């Protein structure tokens, strides 16, 4: 089923595989325009899907080297070698990525956050305010889409949030 991989020049195969692993690990997948000469669009989609599925199954099922090799016997030995090399090298990384994904079992999950500290000099009611405000941006993944949530807090509210998070962290620590 990974037959299509053979259309790629053997020198580029390893690089391509590594890029796919990068994509699995949350970085950029390889781009079609770089490989447009090798595959048509349909083929490209197929090869991408197949390769990703293959890597995930191989690492996720915790297959032994023989089992892994069995699945790609139909391929040229050069490609087989490249695949084995790549898988052996990046196995731990892929495993970590998959574990991360399993961890994100709940419906919403915090992906990233950013904060800005602002000093509000005045408001619509008070001319001299001098109040520090924290703008917290949360990137939350909900049903597969990243949803930005922005919260502005003053000192007390921020303290409340930190207290709540610390309490949560304590519970997590107890679990360890």
């Amino acid at each position: 089923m990974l037959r299509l991989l053979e259309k790629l020049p053997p020198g580029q195969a390893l690089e391509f595989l590594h890029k796919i692993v990068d994509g699995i690990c949350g970085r950029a997948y390889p781009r079609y325009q770089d490989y447009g000469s090798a595959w048509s669009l349909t083929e490209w989609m197929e090869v991408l899907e197949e390769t990703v599925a293959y890597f995930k199954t191989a690492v996720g099922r915790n297959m032994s080297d023989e089992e892994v090799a069995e699945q790609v016997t139909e391929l040229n030995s050069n490609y087989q070698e490249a695949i084995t090399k790549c898988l052996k090298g990046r196995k731990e990384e892929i495993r970590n990525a998959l574990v991360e994904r399993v961890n994100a079992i709940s419906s919403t999950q915090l992906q990233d956050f950013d904060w800005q500290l602002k000093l509000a000099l005045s408001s619509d009611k008070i001319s001299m305010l001098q109040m520090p405000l924290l703008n917290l941006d949360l990137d939350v993944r909900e049903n597969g889409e990243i949803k930005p949530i922005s919260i502005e807090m003053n000192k007390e509210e921020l303290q409340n949030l930190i207290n709540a998070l610390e309490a949560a962290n304590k519970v997590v620590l107890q679990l360890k």
Partner: protein
Amino acid sequence: MEEVDKILIHSLRQAGTLVPPEIQSVRDFPPELVVEAAVRCVRVVRPALGAPLSTLLPPGMSARFRLASDLASACQELGFSGDVGYQTFLYSSEHDTRRLLLFLVEKLPRDEAEGGAEPPGKSGTLLRAISACIRDQLGTPWVPPRCRTPRFQRLQGVGHLHPFSTCPLILPHTGGSPELQEYFRGAAPPVPAQPPQPARAPPALLETHTAQLSTHHNWETEWGSIGLASRLPPQEYVGRKRLQARLRALESLRQACPPRPYGPPEGSLDPAWLQGAFGAGGETGGALPKGSRFTRTQHLTHEQDPQVLLQQVRVAAEALPPSKGSEEGMGMRQAGEEAALEATLARLEVEIEGRRGEAQAAQLGLAQAEAEVRQGRLALGSRQDALRLKAQALELLPDAQGNLAKLQLVVEASSQRIVSLAGQWERHRGPLLAEYRHLRALRDSAQLESSRRLSEIRALHERSCSAADEARRKEELYKQLVLELEALPRDISRAVYTRRILEIVGNIRKQKEEIGKILVDTRVLQKEINTLVGKLERTFSVTDELLFKDAKRDEVVRKAYKYLAALHENCAQLIHTIEDTGTIQREIRDLEEQIEENIRQVKLSSPDYKGCAQEEVVADFLKRIDCYKATYEPLDDQLDSDLSYIKIFDVGVRYLANRVQGHVQSRTVYYLMNIHVTPRAIYLSRHGESQLNLRGRIGGDSGLSPRGRQYATALAEFIRNQHIRDLKVWTSHMKRTIETAEALDVPYEQWKALNELDAGVCEEMSYEEIQARYPQEFALRDQDKYRYRYPKGESYEDLVQRLEPVIMELERQENVLVICHQAVMRCLLAYFLDKSAEELPYLKCPLHTVLKLTPVAYGCEVESIFLNVEAVNTHRERPQNVDVSRATAEALLTVPDHY
């Protein structure tokens, strides 16, 4: 100032002065602190000057004085230009102290820190770069986006603003498989190239580093506290910990899930299953398939059970082999076997039970699986659909050009159809629209027509209304005229009037002819006189010439000339005299006419000639004058100079008062000189109805009632309609008359003399109250109302005295409106109508009525005009019984109604 003080105190602290923390401003500085601060500053600035000075203020007054003076001179030496002396330190004012301390603080050497050594190393460089950047940004003013130069764009643009988001990085590290090392050496991209966008590299790096650091820290602390205590090598410790964590997690998961009696067929928890359960390969990793939780629970909960069972079986099998014991042990063994068999049986039963349960579970699983399969099929169907769609799209893709062309053709065809449809629609629409417009125009015109008709009908209606009104009016007029006609005596026919009118016309014509004749005669006469005068003049001049020539020679002629001159003179005199006679005659005629006019004006209203015709009166009176001439003779200035008399020439043009003596005579002269006979009218009116009038009370000084105000406006209207020349308006000093006069909106004069009769103790009392409280007074008043004087008040007699100047002024004036009160009006009316003192207090002067008095000879004509505004009656007639002992009912018999 607070900022300044804060800076100042901070600087002083740096100079070594211990400023207590509770002191926040220079105002709170005690003298000791001022001295200490100043001395310390001086010491820092110039040690030579400050060394001999003490920082402590000595207790002795003279020592204090010396120290402060030294300090002041030191400050001056340092260059302090302000006014400084011992008082600056000992008896300091806030302002002076602040100035001095500011000066000293400025003299202090600059702080080392500002230009000093910077922190070395990478962080120092970073900090420097950051501060330089911030300084750069702060140093430039904000510029609107369109005006930015590239430099400003770099500083203030949004180009360098990125979300601070991270992505996982892979960093090369030692260890791991040789393949990994190879990867790091060759294929791995450098860190900045790893994130999808270059801007995400720094946050990603930061994140990774922080994560590593915190992991390291956590491990350190944990190893330091718990790890060492376990006395295990680190790897083992970690392994154990991981095992524990997994167990605990399983425990909690098992608690969270409902228990299930039978384990699944699989033996262990394998990651592949987890992978499957958690959507392996699904890019949308978050969304989990439904129903999988139960499956998961099965896996997690019962993985151990089969192992337990196996163990039990093994134990049982070990127990099975029979032991080769002694014979006597046979029975025992058999018993043991029996027991074992029984146990096995029981176990097997249990096992069978378990299997049955398993079978049930399997059935359940089967049903579940079937459901899943159905679900999967459905999903497959939808996917196939999607696939078909995609395949179609892909099929179309290779022949993109051709397909596009086809598509374009289709599109063009449909657009053409749309165009043709639009054309058709236009074709249909045109006539429809026209029809619509036509109909609308028709409707509009119909509307216009109807509105026009409506207005016509309205106009007609109005006209018919007005016509009906007019008809009614005319009918009334006709009725009135008919009535009048009936009222007229029947015997006087129209012919009489006609004849009389014709006579008058004839007379006029005759008179006109006569006048013409007279005029002609006069002209002829004038002409004759002129010719005669001319002839005379000529004759004289001719004679004069003739005589003058001979006069020198002949004595007689001279005499004759003298006579001629005398004659000439006499003749001129004669002519003059004749002319004078003419003028005198004319004067006499004028005078006679005047006398006749006087007679007509004055004597006509004389009681002697009541009911006589005008001509008769004149003739009769002329005769009477002739009789007077026969009997009387005129007063002579010289001969009668010892007599007392008053001569009035031409009704007040000239007065001659001769030997006027005494009060009565002089009052008479005064009176005669004040009266005049110019035709005029005096209007007398009471004020409008007052609040106290309404309540039936006398006196007081209340305002007008609503009806009173209504009367005031009615009076104003009435006066306006009379068109009176030079009308003077007089009021009293009381509110009700002034309010009435105000409505007239003309200037008015206030007379205190016109105030109402003062009722003394009875002011503002009703007649009933007066009767109740002063019955005797009430009766006495009724006995002689003219002379009765209220206790502490006035009588009518007093009022008449008070009114005399008013009356005199009234005589002098011409048209006057007097707005006054009941008693005052009675007095004035009595004067003009010549009523007696008994009549006076009972004259009827109702409210809201104007009395118009027109003075004529021998009296006044009175016209009473009610202005049609209702008012209470205030007139109280004299009761029959005026005895002091009369009953209350009798006393109040004539009291008018009131509220």
